[in-house]
Structures are given as structure tokens and as C-alpha cells.
């Protein structure tokens, strides 16, 4: 495959970036998108220039590091998949591909296509945990958990924290991510105890970091590589409202 790539280049966080156009030739259809960038980078290095920086780690769709905004969609055109798992056969030979970093105020660009997603970790640090040790794996059925709750918690827990939801949202809202984390713990007995405190802390951290407000466009659900559902957002809204109205005033 021969392709024209328009790629965002930015030397560092402070520099002004711009799009550079690259032509690549003879890319195999079975290459993954990142492999295609590797091939391009090799040729750039051969010319003794700086390769394009982009985030990646596992390349098997589980770590959440890869983060490219391709032709107006995070993780590219394929559904329910991260960009490291997406193959070049999704593109037509001879086409032009625009590659940009995630854009959101809380995700500053570090270099080229890499952005700093510490903000998501900061939200987790605000309350996305269970404060006490819950021990090893308990005996099956020693704590009864409804099958439905277990399934929903498991689904929510499949969020890999990639930030595609923020990247695609026209409001740069982190609601899908936060609601997945809130649900994953709030649905299970060990996490329920701190649920009302957790949801309030995480939401206020999310706001403080400058993510936008959710306006229910559901672009996040459409683009999430792990297919996290917006029903998690409704659950978070519900729990938050319950916590604000019902729980005692929070201290500390």
C-alpha cells in the first residue's frame, strides 16, 4: 500500500507544532497501524532525522498506552479496538491519513503524538481505590455477589484508561472513564463501603483538572476500544446525586 500521511510534529511541550506530510510506499495490508509508523520511522532515522514520537507499550490492546487520533477518530476507523490492534487493511491504497495527538486541556502534548495523561491517574488517586487491604482471593461464594453486578463490574473494569473517550468527546469530558472506574468498584461489596465518598472525590477532581462537562453526545461509547457503555455514566450520575443529597457532609 502507498499512503500519504499528515502527521502532527511538535518538538516539545512548549514548541509550536505543525503538520508534516510523509509518503510511505509498499506497506503490507497486514501490518498494524503502529508497525506502519515503525516502517516510516526507520526511513526517517535513515535520513538522520528525528523519528516520530508516539505512545505504545503492549501492542496487544491491554495497556492503554497507544493513543492516536486518526482521520477524526481516536484509535482509527475500526470499532472496539485500540490503534495497536488496528490493521492497515482498514485503509484504501493511495489514501491520505491525518494523524493527530489527543486534544484536551488536561492532556498536554509532550512531543509529536505523545500526550501526558497523568490527569487520569490523578482522578484515580482522588478516590479510585479501596482504602483497606481486601486480602487474597476469597473463597468462592463467601461474599455473595449478584451475577448481574459481577458482570457489570467486570465490564466496567475492562477500561484501560486510554483516554479515547476524552479525545473524541466534543467537550473533552472524562465522564466515561470516571464512570467506569466508579462503577467497577461501587458495584462490588468491598468497594460499596466508600462509594459515596469515592464518587464525590473523583468527580470533583475531574472538574478541577479542567475536563469538560458531559452533554450526552455518546461519542465516547462509540469510540471506546473496550466498548464501555454510557449506562455507567447514568449510574455515576445517580450515585453522585444520591451521595450529594443523602450522605452526610464530607470531612477531609
Amino acid at each position: 500500500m502507498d499512503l500519504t500521511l499528515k502527521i502532527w510534529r511538535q518538538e516539545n511541550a512548549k514548541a509550536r507544532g505543525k503538520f508534516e506530510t510523509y509518503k510511505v510506499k509498499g506497506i503490507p495490508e497486514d501490518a498494524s497501524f503502529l508497525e506502519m509508523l515503525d516502517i516510516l520511522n526507520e526511513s526517517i532515522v535513515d535520513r538522520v532525522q528525528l523519528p516520530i514520537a508516539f505512545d505504545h507499550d503492549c501492542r496487544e490492546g491491554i495497556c492503554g498506552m497507544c493513543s492516536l487520533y486518526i482521520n477524526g477518530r481516536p484509535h482509527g476507523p475500526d470499532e472496539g479496538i485500540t490503534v495497536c490492534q488496528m490493521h492497515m487493511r482498514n485503509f484504501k491504497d493511495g489514501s491520505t491519513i491525518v494523524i493527530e495527538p489527543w486534544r484536551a486541556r488536561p492532556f498536554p502534548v509532550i512531543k509529536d503524538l505523545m500526550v501526558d495523561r497523568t490527569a487520569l491517574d490523578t482522578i484515580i488517586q482522588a478516590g479510585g481505590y479501596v482504602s483497606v487491604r481486601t486480602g487474597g482471593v476469597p473463597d468462592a461464594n463467601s461474599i455473595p455477589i449478584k451475577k448481574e453486578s459481577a458482570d457489570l463490574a467486570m465490564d466496567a473494569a475492562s477500561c484501560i484508561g486510554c483516554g479515547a473517550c476524552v479525545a473524541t468527546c466534543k467537550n473533552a469530558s472524562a465522564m466515561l472513564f470516571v464512570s467506569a472506574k466508579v462503577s467497577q468498584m461501587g458495584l462490588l461489596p468491598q468497594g460499596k463501603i466508600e462509594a459515596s465518598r469515592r464518587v464525590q472525590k473523583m468527580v470533583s477532581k475531574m472538574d478541577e483538572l479542567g475536563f469538560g462537562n458531559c452533554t450526552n453526545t455518546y461519542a465516547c461509547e462509540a469510540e471506546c476500544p473496550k466498548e464501555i457503555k454510557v449506562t455507567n455514566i447514568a449510574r455515576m450520575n445517580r450515585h453522585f446525586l444520591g451521595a450529594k443529597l443523602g450522605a452526610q457532609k464530607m470531612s477531609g
Partner: protein
Amino acid sequence: MAKLLHYSSLTKKFIMAIAGLFLATFLIVHLVINLFILPLTGNHVEIFEIAVHFMTSNPLIKVFEIVLFGGFIIHILYGLIVQIQNWLARPVRYKKEGYSHTSFFSKYMIHTGIIILIFLVIHFINFYFVKLGLTEAPEGPMAVAGDHDFYHMAVNLFSNTWYSVLYIVIIIILGFHLNHAFQSAFQSLGLNHSKYTPFIKAVGTIYSIVIPLGFITIPVYFLIS
């Protein structure tokens, strides 16, 4: 004011949703009264005038009117605040954006909202301010007897083709706004349920079609006759 900004993003959305649902309910009442402008029955003018008289003089409605105003102001103010914050949340825009599948009208809530707001101001100048005595009743071929003769005021306005056409366009835009708004309000309130959500979505769609259609029949009637 500072307090309004201080509320969390979720609280803002709850308040907007409640205010919005309240306004949506009021719209039904408004439509039912308006429909009596049409010759549905022999004494439709009388019924219309009685309804208007009730709406303008009943003390309970007076209280309600304040709540309604509050609803409008809160909904509009929060709509603007939320939108400005959302723009600020993405200072650098994408070169190529918005290719994700989303609910279509959700992207244009601020635009449809602002158009509705502009119309609302015109609407107030035409009717509500007349009632308050702030503006003169509009002139027209029909004699307007007294400041509260809303029937003839409406007939005068709708006799103007341009006004009628503008009215129709605005109401269609209102329909777009309502289409996303209805189900969105329930989502913001956390009311999502595998059994009832499909029903809510269906009601929202029907509501956003039927209510505007109802309003549109009135100018259409005047355009035809």
C-alpha cells in the same frame, strides 16, 4: 453567581435537566392553549380568551410564572456556562474532527438553544411585555381591544407571512433541541434502566415531533387561509 459556577459539572447538569423538563412540561400547556387560536370549535376564541385570562390573572399561576422564569434563566445560564467551559476544555482543536458516531442533534444544542433564546426575546416583546405594559400591542389589520387581547395580537402576527414562516422555522429548530434534550435529561438525572430507557427515548422522539407539529399547524392555517 459564584455559587452557580462552583457547583460540580454533574450538579449543573442535574439542575439543567430538571429546569429543562419543567420547561418541556410547560410547553404542552402552552400548546394546548395556543391550539384554540384555530377554529376547532364554534366558540374557540372564547375558550382561548378564558384560558389566557386564567393564565394571566390566577394567583397560583402568578407564582408559577416566577418558577417558570427561574427555569428559563437557570437553563439558559447553565447552558452557556457549560458550553464555555467545554470550549475551554479543548484549547487546541483537531484538524479533522467529529467523525465519531454521535447522537446528531446533541452536537448543536448550543446553536439551536441560542436561536430559541433569540426567538424567546422576540416572543416576550410581542406578548409578555405587552401584558406587563412594557411594550405596545402590535398594530395590524385587526383591532386589538385592550392589552390582553392576545387572540387578536396572535392573529395579527400570523397574518404576516414572514412572521409565520420564521415561526415555523424556529419551531422546527426547537424540535431539534427537544429531540436530544428529552432523553438527555433522564441520562443526566441518572435515570437509565434497561426496561424504561427505550420507552423514554421513544417518548422523547414522539414529543419532539408532535409538540412542534402542533405549534406549526397554527401559522400553517394562517398561511393557507
